[in-house]
């Protein structure tokens, strides 16, 4: 059995069935028992033009991030695929249509741009699909057939996932797609007999039964499992799939999805629902989140739970709707007027999207605070095959700390406790009614602007966040760390996978490095982060924003300057980029050691 780690891209024009083809590769290879991480990129426009690319990294062991190079390119559109050539490995394998309906000029030819060591596998995709099914629409599946045959992937797994995808469209459509796939498979087996690379045949497979989920699906499932009652939202990329998922499934368990007129009303409705005791959430992206900041402040001041998912995309403003970025961190932590402390957590992979969405409801309820779950386009849209996520009763129970029945009639809603958590009642309970207000208020909820009240209530609201930090919020986790390291690399959100892969590779090369994963962005675990930093001569923090937003936040904990990688390219930071920087820093440290010694 051999270990494999192979990245496959499907590239085509919008409408070519590119995303569908990539999804089927992910599903089929997951079914075959391999670890899969897939990520699609597509134009912001609805349909008809623009490049679509799916990337699938398939491996024998856990996949942490997208790879830096693509080993196999399946081209459904030559001209679009040219842009992918710089990312191809040496050598790479390219499957393309060698008998397209029309002639192409050299400038538009993918083949003309390829390196001479490329394994070129031309298939008459259009003609095969037409011959097999009477239409060229299935040429994406014909290409998949070629892929399966060339790399030794079982066609049965592909037929299963094709059946799953097209069954609901009727027997005729399903048969047409299966025939298109088979045509490609049979052609490749016959024509490329001496050029097959059956890497999947003898590859080691993972033995865990896994399910394929995107980050957004994991969030949706988490909300369902957490017995969400109400979802309010306004569509926006890349958060919309959460709403779509819940619109389909939430009513099945008695919940409701309400499309609001905008994001302001969405957060308002979430606060209203939670005020009334119903578990509620909303999901949005940067532009929508900006609109929510005023009412998030209300949630902070009135101490009302709320779960807000911010699926970050390129910004500011409308920005880059279908590109990834981690540039809402400052807005999530500090957005809005006043000292509006709130909880901000950032899952780093699909499993954590599930786990921390479930947790976010408990955090919101126990600490009576808006909880912002920060994801991003890459994390929301990437698919991973993960162990089936599930939650125990304890993990989804309502964590609201209610008032003792004996205080009925003398209930103090905003009582200043040691933990900062005040007992919260649900309006309507006799003897426990109170006024929730955005005005500063006393312990009983009466508006009051005195310096003493504002000081003590502000301190109380932040104290409960400290309690959350001590008792519940996920602590930073070290990976491969030792007591003395040349370099520590800190990662958060979707970038952490690339950080960990780069650190693992650096350690294999003998470098003294370690990684730290931070999930609780605010409040953050100062002591633990500081402890990690103290073990490292230098700290590197890669993130997908221009200003180094997490580095700005935790920078004061480090004795020196945090070294940053800040990219706003719209695509994930690659492990290679981080590894390159790690080695550059290590080399500089080595040379400074020599310098110190010589002096």
């Amino acid at each position: 059995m051999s270990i494999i780690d192979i990245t496959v891209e499907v590239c085509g024009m919008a409408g070519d069935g590119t995303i569908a083809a990539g999804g089927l590769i992910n599903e089929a290879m997951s079914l075959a028992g391999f670890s899969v991480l897939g990520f699609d990129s597509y134009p912001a426009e609805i349909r008809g033009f623009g490049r679509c690319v799916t990337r699938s990294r398939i491996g024998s062991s856990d996949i942490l991030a997208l790879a830096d190079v693509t080993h196999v390119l399946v081209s459904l559109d030559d001209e679009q695929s040219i842009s992918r050539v710089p990312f191809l490995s040496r050598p790479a394998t390219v499957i393309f249509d060698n008998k397209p309906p029309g002639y192409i000029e050299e400038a538009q030819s993918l083949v003309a741009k390829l390196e001479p060591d490329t394994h070129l596998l031309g298939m008459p995709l259009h003609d095969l699909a037409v011959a097999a099914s009477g239409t060229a629409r299935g040429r994406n599946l014909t290409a998949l057939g070629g892929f399966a045959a060339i790399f030794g992937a079982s066609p049965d797994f592909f037929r299963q996932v094709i059946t799953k995808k097209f069954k609901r469209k009727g027997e005729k459509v399903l048969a047409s797609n299966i025939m298109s796939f088979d045509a490609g498979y049979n052609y490749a087996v016959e024509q490329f007999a001496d050029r097959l690379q059956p890497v999947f045949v003898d590859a080691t497979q993972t033995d865990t039964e896994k399910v394929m989920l995107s980050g957004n699906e994991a969030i949706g499932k988490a909300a369902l499992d957490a017995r969400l009652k109400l979802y309010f939202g306004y569509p926006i990329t890349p958060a919309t799939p959460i709403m779509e998922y819940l619109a389909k499934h939430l009513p099945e368990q008695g919940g409701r999805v309400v499309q609001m007129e905008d994001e302001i009303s969405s957060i308002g409705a979430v606060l209203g629902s939670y005020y009334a005791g119903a578990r509620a959430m909303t999901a949005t992206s940067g532009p929508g989140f900006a609109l929510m900041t005023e009412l998030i402040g209300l949630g902070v001041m009135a101490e009302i739970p709320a779960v807000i998912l911010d699926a970050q995309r390129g910004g500011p403003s409308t920005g880059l709707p279908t590109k990834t970025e981690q540039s809402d961190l400052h807005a999530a932590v500090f957005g809005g007027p006043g000292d509006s402390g709130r909880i901000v957590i950032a899952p780093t992979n699909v499993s954590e999207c599930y786990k921390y969405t479930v947790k976010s409801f408990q955090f919101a309820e126990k600490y009576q605070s808006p909880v912002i779950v920060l994801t991003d386009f890459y994390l929301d849209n990437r698919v991973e095959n993960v162990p089936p996520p599930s939650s125990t009763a304890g993990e989804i129970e309502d964590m609201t700390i209610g008032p003792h029945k004996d205080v009925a009639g003398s209930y103090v809603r905003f009582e200043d406790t040691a933990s900062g958590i005040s007992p919260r009642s649900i309006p309507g309970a006799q003897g426990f009614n109170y006024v929730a207000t955005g005005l500063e208020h006393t312990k009983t909820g009466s508006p009051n602007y005195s310096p003493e009240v504002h000081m003590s209530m502000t301190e109380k609201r932040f104290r409960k966040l400290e309690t959350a930090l001590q008792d519940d919020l996920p602590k930073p986790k070290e990976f491969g760390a030792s007591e003395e390291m040349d370099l520590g690399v800190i990662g958060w959100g979707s970038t952490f996978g690339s950080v960990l892969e780069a650190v693992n590779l650096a350690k294999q090369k003998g470098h003294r490095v370690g990684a730290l994963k931070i999930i609780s962005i605010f409040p953050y675990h100062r002591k633990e982060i500081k402890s990690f930093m103290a073990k490292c001569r230098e700290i590197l923090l890669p993130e997908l924003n221009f200003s180094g937003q997490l580095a700005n936040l935790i920078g004061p904990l480090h004795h020196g300057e945090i070294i940053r990688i800040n990219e706003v390219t719209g695509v994930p930071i690659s492990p290679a980029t981080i590894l390159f920087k790690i080695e550059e820093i290590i080399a500089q440290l080595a040379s400074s050691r020599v310098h110190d010694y010589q002096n």
Partner: protein
Amino acid sequence: MAERHCVIIGNGPAANEAALTLREKDTDLRITMIGKERVGCYRTHLLPNYIIGKTREEDLYVHPTDFYADKNIKLRLGQPVKSVDFSKHEIVLDHKEIVKYHGLIIATGGKPRIPEPFLVFSDIFLTLKTVADANAWIKKLKQIDSVLLVGGDLTSFVFADALIKMGKTVHFVLNDESFWPIRCTPEIFNQATGALSAAGVQVVPCQRLKRLAVQSENSVHVETDSVSLTVGAVGAFFGLRPDVSFLARSGLTIEAGIIVDEHLKTDFDNVYAAGDCAQVFHPELKDYWVSIGYSNAKNLGRIAALNLLGGTFEAEMAPTKIFQMDGIKFNTSWWTEF
């Protein structure tokens, strides 16, 4: 096309030499080499040693693939040409891509020649011209103990020797078709028979292969006019013929190769042919000859490139190496070496 684009069809010694000469003389020229084989230019004469494991595959190749990028020469491999439209200065590739050119050198070399009487056995014969052919032999030889070789070009003699060293039983048919393009005289026949026998090869004197029957994947029954035998595989070694079928309807004059003048120029402006695929006019002989052999091909490739850039060089004259066969004159660098 803003920049001047020269295309070379082929990736053998003539094509490589042409490309390197073009680059040497003109650093701004856009140069593209288009080869139908999926591997870079290799030393054909090393293939027998590669088959028996004495030469590593990487040592077959004349240059690493990155060599061409370093020279700013675009090398396109595994991309057969379907046709050429000389009036439009366009090359059409098999995958329906159109490549425009200002200058063109055709250097497609040769492909294994199967003489007319043996064409019926084409599907049974294994040949040895390419790395792919060699890989096919490697695969086959793992499963068989005996081989029959028919024909008699230089490769066959080297290959027979290699097979003997592998411990295989080698039968060799010598007849009138052997030694092409040289007429097989009794003197040559006797010399060859003696040399082969001394090496351990079982020479089969016959005039005709009467029947080849595939008995199983690794067994072929052979009947000649003198003997019957069963072998694991049959190899055909009748030399090469120009690989120019894609030009059949192009308007180029093609006989035993692409007809070119002593400057290697074809009927069309800025279109040259070089190497095994060219049939070159010899001003002293007042006749045409076809080149065979690695060093000849390189020489012709260089001359074609120089002339495409405006030179008036004549193809190298080497009358002592020119032989005549079936009305065609051949310049063979290897035969005299043999």
